[in-house]
């Protein structure tokens, strides 16, 4: 039994995949000698050498293009985009090339690559280094979208992402890098597309992702202790593929649903979940689906401003009470 941080689980997950398969290599900016700007890739260069851990120039298009081309030949690259916000400068490679080439080639080409990226707020980095962008990639056919909420999920989902024959965008949450977990066995594999239940309950279903899943779990503990409300917290783990069955099963039991998203409200992933629930579980609903999101603003930087923009545990607790008790 060892205590592992989310940060350490990233480098361990990459190392485990690279030990298992010579086809796996790792490419990104400052990932080798520097060990990553979040120190999430420390030790990889020392273990695997420059041929498999490649420090790249600040050229996000060239990094993802090279990863894509290598993947087309059967290699299994892991490419890092330092901040998910930087996906905007290489979005052509992601959305037009990586996502569509399999389809356009009538299945002649597989692109088994993983794009890891530091996502989300909490670090007071301002609007261009703090966004939660899972929904950008969710809307593009051909991309799988994973966002782990804890160290064991980082290990298990990375193993599956690297083995996956399709491109996977792996959103790591910056505010979770220090999150610790007791882990018995590090060589884990968790199938992509299976949600995880973080808290059991039959009064309300709260659906979250990454940091928001952890905050929803913390909120559920308070709701149970202080308000006699039993919330089921579903950590989606991945948006594509989506575990709709787990959502449906819980909604049928609770009749109340809340999604908690870190992104601005418009076109956030919760809107799609809400739509699916109304299509599949309309008769089971006891009220409208509630969406908790950031307001429709770029993320501000100052402590008090950022803290009041991103949904907090307290906000989730209050929204649940308001929803269930009308208070």
């Amino acid at each position, binding site marked *: 039994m060892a205590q592992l941080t989310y940060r350490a689980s990233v480098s361990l997950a990459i190392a485990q995949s690279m030990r298992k398969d010579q086809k796996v290599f790792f490419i990104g900016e400052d990932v080798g000698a520097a060990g990553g700007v979040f120190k999430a890739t420390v030790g990889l260069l020392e273990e695997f050498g420059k041929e498999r851990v*490649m420090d790249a120039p600040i050229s996000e298009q060239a990094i993802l*293009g090279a990863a894509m*081309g290598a993947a087309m*030949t059967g290699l299994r690259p892991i490419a890092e985009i330092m901040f998910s916000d930087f996906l905007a400068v290489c979005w*052509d490679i992601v959305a037009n090339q990586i996502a569509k080439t399999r389809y356009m080639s*009538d299945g002649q*080409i597989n692109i088994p690559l993983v794009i890891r990226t530091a996502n989300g707020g909490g670090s007071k980095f301002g609007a261009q280094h703090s966004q939660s962008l899972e929904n950008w990639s969710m809307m593009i056919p051909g991309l799988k979208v994973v966002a782990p909420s804890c160290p064991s999920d980082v290990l298990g989902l990375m193993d599956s992402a690297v083995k996956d024959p399709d491109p996977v965008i792996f959103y790591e949450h910056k505010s979770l890098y220090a999150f610790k977990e007791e882990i018995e066995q590090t060589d884990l594999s968790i199938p992509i597309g299976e949600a995880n239940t973080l808290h059991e309950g039959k009064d309300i279903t709260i659906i979250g992702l990454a940091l928001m899943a952890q905050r929803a779990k913390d909120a559920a503990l308070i709701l149970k202790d202080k308000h006699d409300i039993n919330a089921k917290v579903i950590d989606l783990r991945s948006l594509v593929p*989506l575990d709709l069955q787990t959502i449906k099963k819980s909604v049928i039991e609770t009749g109340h649903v809340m999604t908690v998203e870190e992104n601005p409200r418009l076109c956030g992933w919760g809107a799609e979940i809400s739509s699916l629930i109304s299509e599949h579980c309309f008769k089971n609903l006891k009220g409208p689906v509630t969406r908790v999101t950031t307001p429709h603003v770029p993320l501000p930087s100052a402590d008090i401003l950022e803290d009041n923009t991103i949904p907090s545990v307290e906000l989730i607790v209050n929204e649940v009470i308001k929803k269930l008790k009308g208070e």
Partner: protein
Amino acid sequence: MVDKLNDDIGEEKRLQLWEMMLKLRLVEKKAYDLFLQNLIKGTSHLALGQEAIAGAFGVALKQGDYTFCTYRGHAHTLARGSSIEGVLGELMGRQCGLMKGKGGSMHLTDVDKGVMGSYAIIGAHLTIANGTALASKYNKTNEVSVCFFGDGTTNIGAFHEALNMAKIWNLPIVFVCENNLYMEYTPIHEVTAVEHPAADRAGAYDLDKIIVDGNDADEMLRTAEKAISKAREGKGPSLIEAKTYRHSGHSRADPGKYRPDEEVKDWMENKDPIKNYRAKLLDFNINEKIISEIEEKIKDQVEKATEISMASPIPEIKEIYTDVWANGGSEWHN
């Protein structure tokens, strides 16, 4: 006058190049005819007049090498040995098409022949071609990657990112700029800071400045062979700027009226790579009967491939839902 005694290319390879270029020319002409008959929908970007570049590389490359081309990629695809009906069928949206109608004219792909795709967003494929080159280096195999693009591409960021990466990692790749003097509808010199849009940038990436007459098939072949050998020997990337001219407009919608009549006439009459190469073959004392037989053979092949394409069924509607994922399907939730 040609120097027959010091002929480094030889009759066999010249006839191969002749047959290749002729095939590219006649298939593009057929594509144009099929457009006029409304049998090809969508858009199309013909490479009429630019055949010597794709043709020379087609002759110079080996099986297993990787090529990447643009939306003006019919010729480059055929030059790797893809079937004519595979190309025309794809343009016509038939099941015999290379991608059974899923990609269309701008995305021709034939992995078995090393055609790693045709790319319709300017610049992207230079970065992707680095990836197959990186794979060859990583696997310690000796394939060469070749990436074709137009003069307009030299002004987009991905061009510069890709050249820098290819150089710092000494990748086995050849970048080929087909400078046809026009960026879509605009003369390239009006929108570019340097006279030679690719070659004048080579120095910025510690690459040799290589400019070649892209309509001189022999020179094109020599240049291609040299750059390919350099890459295969592990001596790194090359950037070639081949001067050429397209006989037709940018795309189906463009009659090319922005180009001066005299300029078009000069390129069509005096600098046509096919016409000039035929004359050169005769200069080298190659029997005209052999030249004509090749012409007849290719004409026949194009006609037969057209018949096959027209007879090929259209795709089934259920194909819409296939091959998003490696499991063959398109489902995104359970």
